């Protein structure tokens, strides 16, 4: 049932395409007959475009090379002749190591300061004329709280 309809449709499409391509070939024929000045202006435009592409092609590799060279130079100054990858890793870990070291130092100094302060108090107590046991006597504490006469 669909056979003849489909066949007619295919014929129609084929004929349409054939017609269209025939029109297109006439258009091509017509476009080849562009006035000389238009053809020349198109040629100049084309040559400018190709020159632009060539120029970009030449400048891009040069830029890439310059960038790569600068990178290698900077790597070399860090590496001092060594392979750069190990130094790069070290350079990235170094700030973290310095931070941890700094924290440890701060903690150590803090502990030292506390110990020093406690030692000073102990030394003052021991060096005083008043025996340390006196501070444990309730009567002495009350005596200290009384205003001076």
């Amino acid at each position, binding site marked *: 049932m669909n056979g003849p309809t489909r066949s007619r449709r295919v*014929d*129609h499409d084929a*004929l*349409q*395409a*054939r*017609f*269209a*391509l*025939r*029109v*297109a070939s*006439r*258009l*091509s*024929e*017509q*476009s*080849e*007959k*562009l006035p000389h000045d*238009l*053809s020349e*202006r*198109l*040629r100049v*435009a*084309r*040559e*400018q*475009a*190709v020159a*632009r*592409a*060539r120029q*970009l*092609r030449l400048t891009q590799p040069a830029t890439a090379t310059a960038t790569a060279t600068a990178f290698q130079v900077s790597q070399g100054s860090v590496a001092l002749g060594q392979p750069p990858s190990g130094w790069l890793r070290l350079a990235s870990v170094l700030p973290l190591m310095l931070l941890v070291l700094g924290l440890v130092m701060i903690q150590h100094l803090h502990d030292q300061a506390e110990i020093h302060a406690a030692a000073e108090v102990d030394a003052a107590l021991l060096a005083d004329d008043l025996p340390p046991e006196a501070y444990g006597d309730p009567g002495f504490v009350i005596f200290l709280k009384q205003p001076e006469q």
Partner: protein
Amino acid sequence: MANDKELSDFLKSAEKRAFKRTAYAVRDEDAALDIVQDSMIRLAEKYADRPVAELPLIFGRILSNATMDWFRRQKVRQAAVQNFSELGSDAEDGDFDLLESLEAVDGSWASQGPPDRLSREQTLAIIDAEVSALPARQREAFLLRYWEELDTAETALVMGCSEGSVKTHCSRAVHALAKALAAKGLKP
């Protein structure tokens, strides 16, 4: 990746069609030349590293965008949209036998040659005028599909519409051209 020669060859093969296609749209030769030149430069600057096979599609898209930009700049986009909207009024002629017309016109060209027929130059001029008179979207679809020889999907990509729309535009364009050319005497 297209080298200079391949890029040059591609542009050489496409430049006249591109110019005509743009001139049909903007109806101004100087503007069409500027648009084609800008499109060529843009292709060279941005897409010259693409494979040669991709250049026709990319160039077609650049040219379409550049043409639309020109309309925007000229502030006549409204006119273009109005022109596009003519698509909606393209009523099918119920009593016009496309198939018969196509066969007639096709046959007339195949057997062209007798001196009493329209001269070839006149025929080309009539075809040029009738293509130019097509509604913008129909003409664009027709030229991309059959002159630039893009397939339906590629034409849809360049035009920014669906493949179904491309088929509809092409069919209507062929229909209109066949009818117009038959009316001009391009039939047996």
